[in-house]
């Protein structure tokens, strides 16, 4: 029996002392006491050796390979690789970081699989999905350039507008004048023809002026050609019966046309003269139509009251509608042409697509 510092080793407690010995829990002197006890008791030596063999000795051949990813100071490691993979597929890493991630991923199959899955979550744009009608999105700049004008320019513009307006007014008036003079010339021609029939009835050119009163006049003329003396007599009697002597005198004075116009313009009462010319023509026709009837009822035609009726009817129905249409057509055509020229020159449409007229801005193309 040996003594181990306050502990006595004997055949009853030697096992505990042997375990303490192999667990390296004894001091050097205590270990010596245990070893002496084993020598003294040879039958327990085998048991002491077996207990010693139960110990595990570290295998130095086993080593942890690629320990870098355990280092927290690296860009990608075991703790943050998922975040870096997400950054990688979102393309939010630099070129160097990308290479490092790729290198890290190549080393570990688990990480590689994770990256493959994340890459599958990346959506691809569907090229077949397109906006149905892009034409409704396109726009055209319809700005108009407003030119600010000084008072001088405004004055010039106003003057031009006034002159243009005056000229247009004059043009329209002159058209009116032409129309009326045309009527007067006709009357004059009628009067001249009347006169010439008085002088020489057989003149064919004078007869053509009566083209609208064809048949009756022709028949009449034929008859006059056949019986000139009768015609002369008849004409004289017609003139004496229908047209007053004063009117004949006026007709003689009307050979000079301008003077006649002046008289008409200056004396509105003389409008009867023009009317009389038409009336004379109308009455001549009536006489030619119903010569016999006229002979029976001369008063019905010769009354001045009826002459005025014919005058009122003849003027509007013969000339005024054509004149108005000509005026309207002329103005419209003028405006239309002006618009076309403006659009062609400036390449600016004066109307919008929805037929709105651009008003109030003066547009000048800078092209």
């Amino acid at each position, binding site marked *: 029996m040996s003594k181990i510092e306050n502990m006595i080793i004997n055949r009853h407690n030697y096992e505990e002392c042997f375990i303490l010995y192999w667990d390296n829990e004894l001091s050097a002197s205590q270990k010596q006491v245990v070893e002496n006890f084993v020598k003294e008791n040879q039958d327990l030596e085998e048991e002491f050796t077996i207990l010693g063999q139960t110990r595990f000795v570290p295998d130095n051949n086993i080593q942890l390979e690629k320990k870098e990813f355990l280092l927290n100071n690296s860009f990608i490691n075991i703790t943050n690789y998922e975040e870096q993979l997400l950054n990688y597929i979102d393309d939010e890493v630099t070129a160097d970081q990308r290479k490092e991630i790729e290198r890290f991923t190549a080393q570990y199959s688990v990480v590689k699989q994770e990256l493959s899955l994340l890459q599958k*979550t*990346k959506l691809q744009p569907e090229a077949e999905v397109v906006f149905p009608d892009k034409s409704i999105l396109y726009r055209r700049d319809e700005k108009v350039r407003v030119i600010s004008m000084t008072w001088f320019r405004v004055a010039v513009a106003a003057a031009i507008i006034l002159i243009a307006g005056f000229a247009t007014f004059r043009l329209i008036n002159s058209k009116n004048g032409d129309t009326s003079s045309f009527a007067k010339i006709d009357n004059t021609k009628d009067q001249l023809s009347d006169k010439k029939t008085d002088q020489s009835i057989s003149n064919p050119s004078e007869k053509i002026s009566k083209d609208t009163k064809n048949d009756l006049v022709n028949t009449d003329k034929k008859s006059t050609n056949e019986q000139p003396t009768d015609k002369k007599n008849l004409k004289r009697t017609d003139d004496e019966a229908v047209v007053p002597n004063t009117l004949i005198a006026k007709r003689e004075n009307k050979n000079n046309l301008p003077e006649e116009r002046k008289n008409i313009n200056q004396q509105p009462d003389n409008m009867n003269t023009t009317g009389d010319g038409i009336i004379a023509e109308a009455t001549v026709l009536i006489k030619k139509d119903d010569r016999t009837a006229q002979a029976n009822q001369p008063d019905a035609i010769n009354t001045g009251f009826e002459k005025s009726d014919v005058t009122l009817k003849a003027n509007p129905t013969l000339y005024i509608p054509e004149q108005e249409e000509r005026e309207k057509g002329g103005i419209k055509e003028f405006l239309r042409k002006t618009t076309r020229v403006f659009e062609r020159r400036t390449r600016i449409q004066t109307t919008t697509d929805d037929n709105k007229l651009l008003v109030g801005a003066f547009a000048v193309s800078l092209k």
Partner: protein
Amino acid sequence: MTEREYNECVTTYADNVYRFILKNLRNEEDARDVVQTAFEKMWIHHDEVDASKSKSYLFTVAYRQMIDHIRKVKRIQLKEEFNENVKVQNRPANNLKKILDEALARLGETQRTLVLLKDYEGYSYEEIGQITNLSESQVKVYLHRARVQLKEYLVKVENVI
């Protein structure tokens, strides 16, 4: 931005923005209206818009218009949580796109928007943040969460298949 640049923008980006809105709203007429309104707004302000930033401007306007539309119409229920109750039925094994579309539809509005802006248009976190009025870090976090949810959905589907 000139008239020509605006019209080029229509030619180049109309389809992109339409895809983006359509994927979010899942209604063609609504998507068309939103895109049209966005372009109208851009035209109204085209004098103030820098041509180089026209795409970003367009997506920003379209995104806000879309959010307004969603709030107004409330056709789509806003969900921030990923829908876990997924029924997998008769799904072809190789139809990844279809599965992914389903997964995308189960994301929340914000997350879906972020994923689409990232994947379809390739915007950076910063640009996405400007469009959606989120911080860059918020974009990053939301987008990563969305991506993980998509991945988990794919794994789940693949497991089922």
